[in-house]
C-alpha cells in the first residue's frame, strides 16, 4: 500500500514539475506579453493543482489537506484576476498591439 501511494505521489509531482518546465520554457520562448502570460498561467493553474494533490496524497487526509485546498482556491481566484489586470494594462499602454494579435476595433 505504501509503495502504491509513493508511486501516485511521484506521478503527480513529476507531472507538476513537467508542467512547470513547459511554462518556464514558454515564458522565455514567446515574444509578446500576452503569449507569455498564457504560458505563465500554466504554473498558477495546473502545476499548482498537481503539486498540491501530490502533497495531499503524500500526507493523507487531515487538517493540512483543507489548508492545501484553500491555497489552491486562493491562487485560482487571485491569478486570473491579476492576469486580467496585466493584460488590460498591456492593451492600454501598448501602441503596437496589432503586431501581437488581432485587434477588433
Amino acid at each position, binding site marked *: 500500500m505504501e509503495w502504491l501511494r509513493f508511486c501516485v505521489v511521484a506521478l503527480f509531482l513529476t507531472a507538476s514539475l513537467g508542467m512547470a518546465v513547459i511554462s518556464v520554457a514558454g515564458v522565455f520562448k514567446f515574444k509578446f506579453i500576452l503569449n507569455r502570460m498564457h504560458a505563465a498561467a500554466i504554473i498558477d493553474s495546473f502545476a499548482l493543482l498537481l503539486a498540491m494533490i501530490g502533497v495531499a496524497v503524500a500526507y493523507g487526509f487531515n487538517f493540512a489537506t483543507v489548508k492545501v485546498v484553500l491555497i489552491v482556491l486562493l491562487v485560482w481566484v487571485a491569478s486570473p484576476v491579476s492576469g486580467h489586470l496585466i493584460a488590460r494594462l498591456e492593451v*492600454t499602454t501598448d501602441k503596437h498591439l496589432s503586431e501581437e494579435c488581432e485587434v477588433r476595433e
Partner: protein
Amino acid sequence: MKPRSDYELSLWRRLVRFVDGETLADVERRAEENRESDAKNQQMADAEAEKRFEQEEKEDREDRKRRLELEHEKEAKSLLEKYKNWPKEHGVKIFGRLYAVMAVLLCAIVITTLLVTVSYLPEYGSPDNPNNNEVVEKYNKDGLYDTGATNNVASMILDYRAFDTLGESHVLFVAAVCVMILLRLELTKDGKPTDVKRAEEENDRLYEPKNDKILQLSAKILVPMIIMFGIYVILNGHLSPGGGFSGGAIIGAGLILYVNAFGFEKAKRIMNRKNYAIISVVPLLFYAIAKGYSFFTGANHLESGIPTGTPGAILSGGLILPLNICVGIVVACTMYHFYTLFRKGGM
C-alpha cells in the same frame, strides 16, 4: 614685330635718315630707349606671368585639395557603409555571447562561494554551536513561565527584548516620514488638491484599472478574508507563529488591494491623512510608554502589572497582546501609506 639687328645700317634706312635729317646717334638713343622699355615690358610681363602662374598653381593646389577631400569623404562613406551594420550584425552577437559567458561565470562564482561558506558553517543542532549559550537556554526554559506566551518568539521580541522591537517600529515610522518628505504633494490652503495632484490623479486614471468589475468582485471576496486573517495572525501572535509584523503586512496588503479595486475616494473613508496620523502615532506612543522605561530599568523588565494568565488562552501573556496589536497597526499603516505615496503622493 622686331626689325633685324642690321636694319639701321641698311641702304634704305640710311636714305630715310638722310631725308629725315637724323644721325646715327639719334637712332641709337631711340633704340636704347626702345630696348629699355622693352625690358620693362618684359619684366612686367614676366611678373604678370609669374603671378598668373602662381594663381594657377594655387588654384591647382586647391583643386587637388578638394579632390583629396572628396576622396577622403568617399573613403569614409564606404567605410561607414561597410561598418554601419556592424553592431547589429556582429556587435550584438558578440555582446550577447560575452553576456551569457559572464552571467554563467558570475552565477558559478556566487554558487561556489555560497557552497564553500556553507561547508564551513557549524553543524545544525550540534551542542558546541556558538548560539547554544545560556541566553537561549534561559529563554527556552523560563519563557513560558515568565511571560505566559506559548510562542517563544513573541515572548522574546515583545517582552525580553521589547526595546528592540520598539526601535524597529519607530524605524518603520521614520521611514514613512522620510518618504513623505520626499514624495508628498501639498494641498492648497483650503485643503483641496493642487493642480499637480489633480494632474497626477488624471494620469492615474489612464493606466491604472479603475472600476474594473472583475477586480472589484474578487476584491469583495478576498479583502475581508485577508484582513480577517491578518487580524487573526496579530491576535494569535503570542500563541502561534505570527505576530504584529506579519499580521500588519497582511492587513496592509488587503488595504492596498481594496484601494486598487475601489479607488482612493472610497478608501478615504477609513484612511485619510488625519486618521493615518492618529492611527500610526497613538500605538507608537503607547508602545513607548509601555516599554520605554525598560531602557532605564535594565534587565528583563517583565513586570507590567498585567497578569500573565493561563498559557494558551487568548487573553494571556501580559503586555504581549497589546504590543502585537500596536506593531500590527503601525506596520499596516506604513505599508498602505507607502503605497499611496508612491502611487500619487499622499492619501
